[in-house]
């Protein structure tokens, strides 16, 4: 049964969505269109000569072996960030939901990292884990673990994943906490009376009922890992060692803003856009079927 309140006027609904529509057009569609146009051009830094080059920028990307490797790097990075970010924050939210005393303090502290800019998060983690001056790396070396994010690819990847996850945990936490709190207490109490322990109650009641939230966060976290993490990479590893942490969006940023190669950078952002659109479509078509609303 659907509840609907139809508008009588034909222009009022359009008027009401006009502000939102305008915002989306100006801040999303227009830049996206610009990127599309620029990806077909080759221009010098100052834009004094602009030449239409067709798909040459894209062709160059496919011929660049390091660009193709960067897909793999990005896949590993995004999967790690999304899984760890969602898993850890679900865990934290579950426990914060059960805390009896000091709830406000826990929640506030868990939300704080969200206010930190990505580049700052990168620098904070870099300071902790820098081979020469980092507190954590010093401790690790004392314990006999040779931490060197400058030359060891796995260490470098671990570093940016930690920073990216830490930054996103608060956001995920907020949604999970709200999700958990909206689950009727009566359901959980009924299960408890039937003899289900906390673990059982979580897997059979709370987790399935959280599925809309989890699904939403999966989409958001994947988009975050793909688009918003260049600041962390730039501050922590600059894509090194070699190109082993150079994820796709970092290369877009580097080529566009540092190297002033706007055509190449635009072509890469178009590729990135296509990937994220495809991923989101896949998520909505296949993962969403498992979601109970």
């Amino acid at each position, binding site marked *: 049964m659907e509840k609907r309140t139809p508008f009588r006027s034909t222009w009022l609904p359009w008027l009401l969505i006009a502000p939102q529509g305008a915002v989306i057009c100006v801040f999303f569609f227009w830049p996206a269109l*610009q*990127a599309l146009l620029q990806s077909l051009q080759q221009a010098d*830094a100052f834009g004094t000569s602009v030449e239409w080059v067709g798909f040459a920028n894209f062709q160059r990307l496919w011929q660049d072996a390091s660009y193709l490797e960067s897909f793999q790097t990005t896949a590993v990075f995004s999967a790690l960030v999304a899984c760890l970010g969602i898993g850890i924050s679900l865990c934290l939210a579950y426990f914060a939901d059960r805390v009896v005393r000091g709830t406000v303090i826990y929640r506030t502290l868990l939300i704080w990292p969200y206010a930190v800019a990505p580049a700052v998060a990168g620098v904070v983690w870099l300071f902790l884990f820098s081979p020469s*001056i980092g507190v954590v790396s010093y401790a690790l070396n004392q314990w006999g673990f040779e931490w060197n994010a*400058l030359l060891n690819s796995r260490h470098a990847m671990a570093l940016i994943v930690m920073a990216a996850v830490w930054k996103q945990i608060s956001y995920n936490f907020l949604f999970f906490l709200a999700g958990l709190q909206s689950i009727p207490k009566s359901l959980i109490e009924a299960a408890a009376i039937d003899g289900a322990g906390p673990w059982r109650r979580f897997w059979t009641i709370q987790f399935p009922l959280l599925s809309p939230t989890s699904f939403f966060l999966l989409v958001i976290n994947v988009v975050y890992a793909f688009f918003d993490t260049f600041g962390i990479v730039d501050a922590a590893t600059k894509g090194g060692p*070699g190109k082993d942490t150079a994820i796709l969006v970092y290369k877009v940023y580097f080529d*566009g*803003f540092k190297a002033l190669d706007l055509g190449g950078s635009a072509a890469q952002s178009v590729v990135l856009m296509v990937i994220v659109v495809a991923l989101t479509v896949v998520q909505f078509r296949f993962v969403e079927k498992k979601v109970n609303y």
Partner: protein
Amino acid sequence: MTFFTRSKVAVPCVMALCGLMHAGAQAQTEIQWWHSMTAVNGEWVNDLAKNFNANQKEYKVVPVFKGSYDESMTAAVAAFRAGNAPHILQVFEVGTATMMASKGVIVPVGKVMQDAGFKFDPAAYVPAVAGYYTSPKGEMLSYPFNSSTTVFYFNKDAFKAAGISTDKPPATWPEVALAAAKLKANGHKCPLTLAWQGWTQLESFSTWHNTELATQGNGMRGMNARMVVNSPLHVRHIENLGNMAKQGLFVYKGRGNVPEATFVSGECAMITTSSGFYGNVAKNAKFGYGLSALPYYPDVPGAPQNTVIGGASLWVMSGKKADEYKGVATFFNYLSNAEVQSASHKRTGYLPITLAAFKLTEASGFYKQNPGTDTAVNQMIRKTTDKSRGIRLGNYVQIRAIEDEELEQVWAGKKSAKEALDSIVTRGNEQLERFEKANTSKN
């Protein structure tokens, strides 16, 4: 950025704003100067403008800090596209080829000076500095402002502890390896590190040994240059460093100037980096330190030749009014004054840009009082050759990143020196070919 720069709406607004600002200062002509100098060097820039403004009434130079070198260049690109560029822009050496190739964006500094009626003699400048910013036709395009070069620093206390002479610091690479081995035997964890690895170990290394990094005189003669950095000499040097890394004699501490902190803290005993690092060491090092010339291989004919500069120069942007250009010329004329130059050199550790300023500094006894400060100057005040005049590569920012990426593979033991250098050549040439194509097709 693209969204803002292409926006035709923003331009009238900005112009209206400029009109308002201009109305307030009609008596004086304002000269906007965008720069990237921070901390001590930022104060220096502000003092230069202040003194110039106090000396005359006609023009007012306004220095504006626009972020790091690459940030201020991006900002200038955006401003130029919106028709609102500054009069003077400080651009790092890596951006030189981009500025030169952007026809109609800049006005050659020689022309600005001559139009304003000032005598402008390129011969008055230190050759390796002026040559870097001179076009293949012999026209000086930008005004050399803050130039540094690559030198060698060592920790005297650590040397003494390891029984190495501090009066005769290692001058050649074999001697550096020997000193590093002694330091390691003495329990030192980081005998040697390298900052700006591409600049110090490939670029400056090449000119120092009078060997080409790229053809066409390292790109100084034209945009059709191609990388040749996989020569036997280059392979030998990188192989040596790779072996030293394996033995723990050289410890990699990161890209850019990041490794410098490990020298100041005493963790690393030797470092090759910019002469501009001197101020930091003098202020913060809690140990005896020494400064000497970049090491070389004594069996290479022609070595040592001269090292290559880094730092930045001032570019004059196009599309401004005649009296504004006159103001820019007057300001540059002030900066060229030997007294001003010499004071800047002593204050910042950057190179003196004119020969007169060098002689003046020498006569004042500054080098005697501060031993080692003349190292950088001595490496530069030499007659340059076609192979050592400078390095001018298109898409240089990307090439520097490629150098970092490939060298890291050697230090990590994943690639041999030859493989990494071959890869720098292949990947670097793709960048050079693309730059050539993008910048020649428009004529």
